[in-house]
């Protein structure tokens, strides 16, 4: 017997090690009832926590060092073309101002309809900016690790986005870091709508990291390449109307001829993620009939749509938090909305600003309204909340961007283009600690009291 063990020592050792690993694997696969699908046993989670915790500080250090040098170089390089870029941006701002006027009309109309229909929607109220510090390192699993964990308020199943589109959802949370499952992982999924045709489906990842809609759209439907795909909100993870990608092709499903397989190019560059936003809080806003406005007079609508000199009513009562009810005040248009760029923002917010995330968390507020939902046009843009429901976005010291009721300012600061109602200018306050997106009408303090 002793001879047997001596002779077959190596194969026996191999079998023993494999047996232990298979048993450990089985305990994870066979989860206790009630456990979440992604969760693993406490013992194996410990290995994951230890490994991630041990590597995270080193990775953070490398990321920070690399970022320091890269930013230094970029700052130098950016200065060289600043004048030309400034001119281009001025033109872009002028163009966007005109576009904003059109969008505001659509949004106002949508709000009126929402009041009539008593719509309920979820709006982003709080986000946490985070840096990507690692990936899974394999093609079989598309995960990223971010440098914010439970201490920053991150929880599992929170949506992760960038200004370009959705990224994924939080899978595992540790104290100082979290792992995010990307939407192009084959275990991932999100409810989506094709923007023009309004067809609904579920987008999933493939083993090669591509995005596909494989279920829900019949093969007799017409889907054109280039059509935008946005989130439907049905999965209760991603906010509705957020960009997912664009259609690059559609073919009949090999397995089931009755369905289409639609390939999608993701809006967010999932291979080059650096900064992301985790949506830590969403609120249910409803346009209840009681809070709704009275029907507008035709004159008010006209004054809102046509260029006019701003009327300032110093006696206008300030509603709590500067909130307005229902339809946006028709006389509040001409004052520019200001997008305050953070100057004294903390490191985390700088990261958010660098990626343009300062535009993100302020749906329904001036310029941030359109930026908050870049993919929203037409019907989706119409579902943006009114300024009454979406107060000013502010960033807390922890780097999270939180919406708090805005304080209406008594007088308009800058009227750049009186001919264009709701024209937008970019302003940099001396010490704005937050990325603040202020509704145009509230900045001007021109709220029209509910009649």
């Amino acid at each position, binding site marked *: 017997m002793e001879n047997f063990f001596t002779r077959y020592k190596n194969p026996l050792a*191999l079998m023993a090690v494999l047996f232990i690993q298979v048993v450990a694997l089985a305990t994870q696969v066979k989860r206790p009832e009630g456990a979440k699908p992604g969760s693993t046993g406490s013992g194996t989670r410990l290995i994951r926590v230890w490994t991630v915790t041990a590597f995270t500080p080193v990775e953070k250090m490398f990321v920070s060092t690399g970022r320091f040098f890269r930013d230094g170089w970029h700052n130098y390089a950016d200065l060289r073309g600043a004048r030309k870029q400034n001119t281009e941006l001025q033109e872009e701002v002028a163009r966007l101002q005109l576009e904003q006027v059109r969008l505001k009309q659509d949004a106002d109309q949508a709000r009126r309809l929402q009041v009539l229909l008593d719509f309920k929607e979820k709006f982003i109220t709080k986000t946490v900016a985070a840096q990507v510090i690692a990936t899974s390192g394999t093609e079989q699993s598309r995960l990223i690790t971010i440098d914010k964990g439970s201490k920053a308020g991150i929880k599992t199943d929170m949506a992760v986005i960038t200004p370009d589109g959705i990224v994924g959802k939080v899978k595992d949370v540790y104290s100082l870091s979290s792992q995010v499952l990307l939407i192009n992982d084959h275990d991932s999924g999100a409810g989506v709508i094709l923007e023009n045709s309004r067809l609904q489906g579920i987008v999933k990842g493939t083993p090669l990291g591509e995005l596909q809609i494989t279920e829900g759209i019949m093969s007799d439907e017409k889907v054109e390449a280039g059509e935008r795909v946005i989130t439907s909100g049905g999965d209760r993870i991603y906010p509705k109307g957020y960009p997912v990608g664009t259609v690059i092709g559609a073919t009949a499903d090999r397995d089931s001829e009755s369905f289409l397989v639609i390939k999608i190019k993701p809006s967010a560059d999932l291979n080059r993620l650096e900064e992301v936003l985790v949506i830590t809080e969403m609120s249910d806003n409803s346009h209840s009939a009681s809070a709704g406005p009275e029907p507008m007079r035709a004159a008010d609508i006209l004054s809102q749509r046509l260029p006019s000199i701003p009327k300032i009513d110093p006696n206008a009562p300030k509603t709590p938090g500067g909130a307005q009810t229902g339809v946006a005040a028709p006389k509040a248009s001409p004052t520019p909305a200001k997008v305050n760029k953070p100057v004294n923002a903390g490191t985390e917010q700088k990261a958010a600003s660098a990626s343009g995330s300062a535009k993100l968390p302020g749906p329904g507020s001036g310029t941030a309204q359109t930026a908050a939902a870049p993919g929203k046009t037409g019907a989706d843009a119409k579902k943006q909340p009114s300024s009454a429901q979406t107060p000013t976005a502010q960033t807390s010291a922890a780097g999270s961007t939180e919406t708090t009721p805005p304080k209406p300012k008594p007088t308009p600061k800058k009227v750049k283009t009186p001919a264009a109602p709701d024209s937008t200018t970019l302003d940099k306050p001396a010490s704005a600690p937050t990325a603040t997106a202020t509704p145009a009408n509230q900045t001007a303090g021109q709220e029209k009291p509910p009649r």
Partner: protein
Amino acid sequence: MNASVSLTSREEIEVHRFSWPVSIGIPVLAIFLQVFLRVRFLAVLDLPLLVTIFFAVARRRPIPGMITGALIGTLQDAWTGHPIGVFGIAKTIVGYLGSSLGVKVDVDNPGSRFLMTFAFVLIHRFVYMAISLQLVGGSEAWIWSHTLLSALVNGLAAVVLFAALDKFKLRN
């Protein structure tokens, strides 16, 4: 007459040793680089697997080889979304086979290193798929072209990497 089949000379079956910092530092560095470097092309490169193969064939002892593979694979699993053990089992088998092969075949030659790594990448992928599909219940598809490309890239990388890592071998 008991003649064991061996394709190596006496010198070639020398069992190499490594210092403790190298034994720990190189695998940890490989895993770190694998998860830290976010270059898409490098995703087909499996540095932890290459390190597993290198230590296994250099030590030429199956038990240390498979334990090295098991530890590296388990650490790698921690960064993935899979249950822990999928890469662990795959690399355990590769470590065992690598150290067993090191006794029989000349594995210090660049050509044999390329072929050996090419084969081990396929085996690793096969074992991974078997575990993923049969034990974990995954739904991954075997894509031949991608797998062969990965084996080719890793085989070429192994030739360069192993030559660099040879410098860490302790000579008696």
